[in-house]
């Protein structure tokens, strides 16, 4: 648990696969990340004792012990089961009855009780392209959880948080993209004001699930392979990498097509005046070669807006949390 002595604002990126907390420590920003997942283990006194001794965050609920956060991955691998997710496709998982309680526990392990008027800004996804899905429940519920912890809560669109974290040089004008587990979130901002934002449900989980169904591997294993050794450079040494390339490519094409559609459908698009940057962030954008492939697809696509550069965020895993923190800090 973080022990923050000051009442400096906090940024919280609540993603489908990870929750990341950002806070200031002097001139630096400190991050703490927890997997937004859990796994249930049959209860035994001995197991509980071991977990306590190892200081593994867990909860005992009747015949089960629930291990949540970062340790859930290790236990899932140990028990050869899949981790369970509190969220899916960017929002609270309706198929997981205990999702809200688990989110509360994971966040609770990261945050102490909010101090008086301590500001906290958390990320929320944009509606999927072409669907006006109601995200109100997700946002309101998380807002309530955080408010109950004593924070003065605000939310920020996840794509916009990328803009806030990375685009001060362009006066917060450009396209911020966060490729996470459940969603890819996109936001075009002009002088800090979001002009258009959307999400597509093809992201890390989609790639993992699709690849798992083709290869017969467990999803967790696919994810680990993807995160540890996948290179997006056109050269595919094995079947798994070849499969991952295919689904990555599909995701990138979906993203670029979505951006074109969203821009075409945006009323009152401001005249940008000059080319704008695109910044890529999120764990799913991290494989080597991702940026190059994305840039190639944008160039092939006859994109409507002139682009000055396409670059990776300085710290892709923490970009959204940093953007949320920036939003909280500028709200002071």
């Amino acid at each position, binding site marked *: 648990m973080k022990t923050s002595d000051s009442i400096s604002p906090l940024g919280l990126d609540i993603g489908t696969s990870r929750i990341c907390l950002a806070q200031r420590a002097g001139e630096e920003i400190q991050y703490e990340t927890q997997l937004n997942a859990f796994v249930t283990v049959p209860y035994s006194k001995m197991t509980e004792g071991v977990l306590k001794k190892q200081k593994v965050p867990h909860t005992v609920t009747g015949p089960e012990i629930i291990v949540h956060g970062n340790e859930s991955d290790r236990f899932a691998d140990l028990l050869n089961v899949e981790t369970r997710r509190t969220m899916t496709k960017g929002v609270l998982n309706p198929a997981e009855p205990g999702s809200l309680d688990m989110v509360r526990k994971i966040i609770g392990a990261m945050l102490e009780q909010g101090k008086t008027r301590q500001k906290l800004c958390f990320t929320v996804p944009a509606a999927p392209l072409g669907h006006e899905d109601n995200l109100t429940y997700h946002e309101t519920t998380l807002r309530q959880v955080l408010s109950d912890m004593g924070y003065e809560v605000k939310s920020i669109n996840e794509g916009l948080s990328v803009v806030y974290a990375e685009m001060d040089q362009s006066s917060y004008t450009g396209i911020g993209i966060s490729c996470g587990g459940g969603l890819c979130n996109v936001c075009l901002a002009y*002088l*800090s004001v979001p002009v258009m934002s959307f999400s597509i449900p093809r992201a890390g989980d989609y790639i993992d699930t699709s690849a798992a169904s083709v290869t017969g591997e467990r999803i967790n294993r696919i994810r680990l392979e993807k995160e540890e050794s996948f290179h997006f450079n056109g050269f595919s040494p094995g079947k798994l990498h070849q499969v991952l390339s295919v689904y990555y490519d599909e995701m990138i094409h979906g993203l670029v097509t979505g951006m074109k559609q969203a821009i075409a459908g945006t009323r009152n698009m401001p005249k940008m005046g000059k080319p704008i940057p695109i910044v890529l962030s999120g764990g799913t954008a991290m494989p080597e070669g991702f940026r190059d492939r994305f840039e190639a697809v944008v160039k092939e696509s006859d994109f409507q807006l002139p682009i000055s550069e396409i670059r990776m965020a300085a710290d892709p895993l923490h970009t959204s949390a940093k953007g949320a923190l920036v939003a909280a*800090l500028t709200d002071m």
Partner: protein
Amino acid sequence: MVAPLNKLIEWRSQRIEDPLEKLRFLRQAATSSMTVEASLKTPRRWQWVSGGVLFAMITICAFTLARQPASTAAASLPERLSAQGGVHLMPKVWLVETKQDSDVYSNGLRVENKYAVDNEPRKSYPAFARRDAKESPMEWRTQPSGIVYHTTESLQLPFEQSATKAIQRVDVDVLGLVRKARSYHFMIDKFGQVYRLVKESDVAYHAGFSVWGDERAVFVNLNNSFLSIAIETHTRPDQEMPTATAAQIHSARVLTEMLRSKYQIPASDCVTHAQVSVNPDNKLLGFHTDWAGNFPFNELGLGDNYLEPPAAIDTFGFTYDSTLVQATGSRYWQGLILAEEQMRLQAMNQGLSQAEYRKILQEKYSKILRAVRGNSAEKEKSNEN
């Protein structure tokens, strides 16, 4: 965000190095624009906005609709909506007693008279119509129509107890200088003491080449038409916070209340030197830049008059350069760009290019200036203060 503002907003934001400050500025700018857009839904509009005009035109008017002409009656009734939308009452202040060297007023104001001096008496002066600004005056007035706030730009010592004697010596020097030059009607020293210099009935040479307009009237060369208050401080580029001491701000407030009460001056006609000062040779606004961006309008019980479009731009075709923009904080530029946009739309409504329309306005100003200088006994002092 209102499109015509964007370039200026972007330009200014790029001059802010700190990312958080930059974002704060941009979000503030966006909020201001949204407030303006929201205010479009209110039924009150400037009458001179014709139907079907562009959104941007309406936006400009949302900033300016708050203005009302000088009230001559009903002193205690709400005078006007401020530029920020609040209701401001016309203050009611009266003289309580006059002692040997000072006047005491009902709001606690005390004015020292030992430096008071005569100058040439105020004569009647012309007020021109804002909306069509014909070369002939709309009316002639004899009472002050507004207040211009100045800084003395004098030596500033550390405001510390140990420096009290030195500060007092500087005060006396500055008072002597500005008294001799007949520069202002009032000066407020570092400790908040209010000194009467040029008598209110006389002209002070504080804003020789200058233009200001409220919703109804435009005034040219404000020495005759506006009173002047100098605060002993200075202006530096990009200052956001007032450089005045708390005592000075308090005194400026009670002095402003007294003058507004006495002459029924609308809040929108209480403005800073940077907002009114013009150079007739190059037709640039902001020849002087004191209080260009950090005047504490709200603390003085006035609306944020930095939002008011300067009449020099939209009525007389003046423009401004980087000198003024560098001196402004994050507030004054909004009024500047609104006036520019207003001028642009007026040109469009008349089927003229901006350059053509600007030239017409500038010629009108030149004629009015000649008439004003000819009609007035005032000796223009183009480089006052």
